[in-house]
């Protein structure tokens, strides 16, 4: 057979593509459930990290123990139970269906609220969770992560020293989100602001903008005492 004829080449390419397409579709759909579960577990791990529970083995058990309910905030600032699926993409939820997630947690009898935040750093996406005390103002803990910030500079937002700075800071000032990051040494409101990462200015600004925008969505809930 002439393997160099035009018709042979075209048929060969078409058949190959169809076989590969079926194969990939099969693999993807048969692994989907397991993958979604992994992403969910990873999300729960990050929520727990914002509550300063880190380095744990059994995420699902710990999550059940501390996170009491997965709530959605309605526009007037009241919370209703999230009856839908466990959210993974908060940006999509907020933009498309105006759903703002709040995780209500119970740490040894004290209520904590965890809010997802997301934004952009220098090279790509950054995201995280902010845990506030029951007064909806004082920061209990934060967790940040990033897709591709520069190691040693912007990537430091994922390190403990940066995140520890947030503990005990206040969030709302005169109905506005004041919690933020300032350039190292330029902090004017130490009760609201933390030092940025030296050499990671754009990432630090990204964290600042992320906190202001995403927590800003929750203003009606945060000011509703």
């Amino acid at each position, binding site marked *: 057979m002439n393997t*160099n004829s035009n018709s042979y080449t075209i048929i060969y390419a078409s058949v190959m593509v169809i076989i590969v397409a079926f194969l990939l579709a099969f693999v993807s759909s048969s*692994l989907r459930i397991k993958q979604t579960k992994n992403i969910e577990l990873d999300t729960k791990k990050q929520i727990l990290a914002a509550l300063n529970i880190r380095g744990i083995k059994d995420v699902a058990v710990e999550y059940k123990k501390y996170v009491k309910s997965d709530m959605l905030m309605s526009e007037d600032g009241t919370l209703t139970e999230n009856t839908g699926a466990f959210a993974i993409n908060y940006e999509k939820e907020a933009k498309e269906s105006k759903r703002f997630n709040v995780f209500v947690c119970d740490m040894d009898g004290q209520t904590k609220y965890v809010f997802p935040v997301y934004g952009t750093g220098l090279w790509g996406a950054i995201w995280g969770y902010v845990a506030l005390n029951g007064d909806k103002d004082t920061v209990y803990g934060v967790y940040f992560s990033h897709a591709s910030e520069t190691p040693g500079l912007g990537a430091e937002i994922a390190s403990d020293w940066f995140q520890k700075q947030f503990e005990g800071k206040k969030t709302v000032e005169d109905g506005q989100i004041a919690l933020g990051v300032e350039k190292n040494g330029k902090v004017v409101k130490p009760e609201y602001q933390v030092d940025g990462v030296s050499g990671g200015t754009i990432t630090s600004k990204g964290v600042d903008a992320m906190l202001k925008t995403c927590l800003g969505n929750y203003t009606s809930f945060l000011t509703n005492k």
Partner: protein
Amino acid sequence: MGQLFSKKNKDVFSTPLGMNNPITVQVLGICSALAVTAKLEPAIVMGLSVTVITAFSNVVISLLRKTIPNRIRIIVQLVVVAALVTIVSEILKAFAYDVSVQLSVYVGLIITNCILMGRLEAFAMQNGPWESFLDGIGNGLGYAKILVIVAFFRELLGSGSLLGFNLLNYDWLKEMGYINNGLMLMPPMALIIVACIIWYQRAHHNDLQEK
């Protein structure tokens, strides 16, 4: 069985591990060697993923080699590699999620790894499936070997740990003046370590040196 492990086949398997190593001698696949070697664990997973993908894509191409239309052979090779990479990536996401997060885009970039295309074009298109399989495993392991060596030094000296186990982060070491070298975590140090390995290898094997 004698046929399967003939002298020639053993050479096919073992030369990529040493004298014809894809990274240190052919200088292929450097990009991912820089990117995933800051920690030992992703380096091992990356090395294994490349080994599996090289081996199986070699076998598939070798089986198809007589039917592939010459004019679209590179496209056929790419489709086979891309399909295998996607499958490995999906499997990692399902069974080793943490590692797949760390490897992020680099699993997908295996598609463009020169080692794969090089072996398919240079070896699998001319040889039978079994030889191609050995060649793929050999080249994959040759790649993995260098990755593991580089990652070993980078994680040990950069983070003071190996596979996440703390080895050097102690207060008394700090008091003696030892601190982790942050530069080790940056990609340039991978290049320098690879260069040192190449230097060592060439110094010991005269026939690798250019005249």
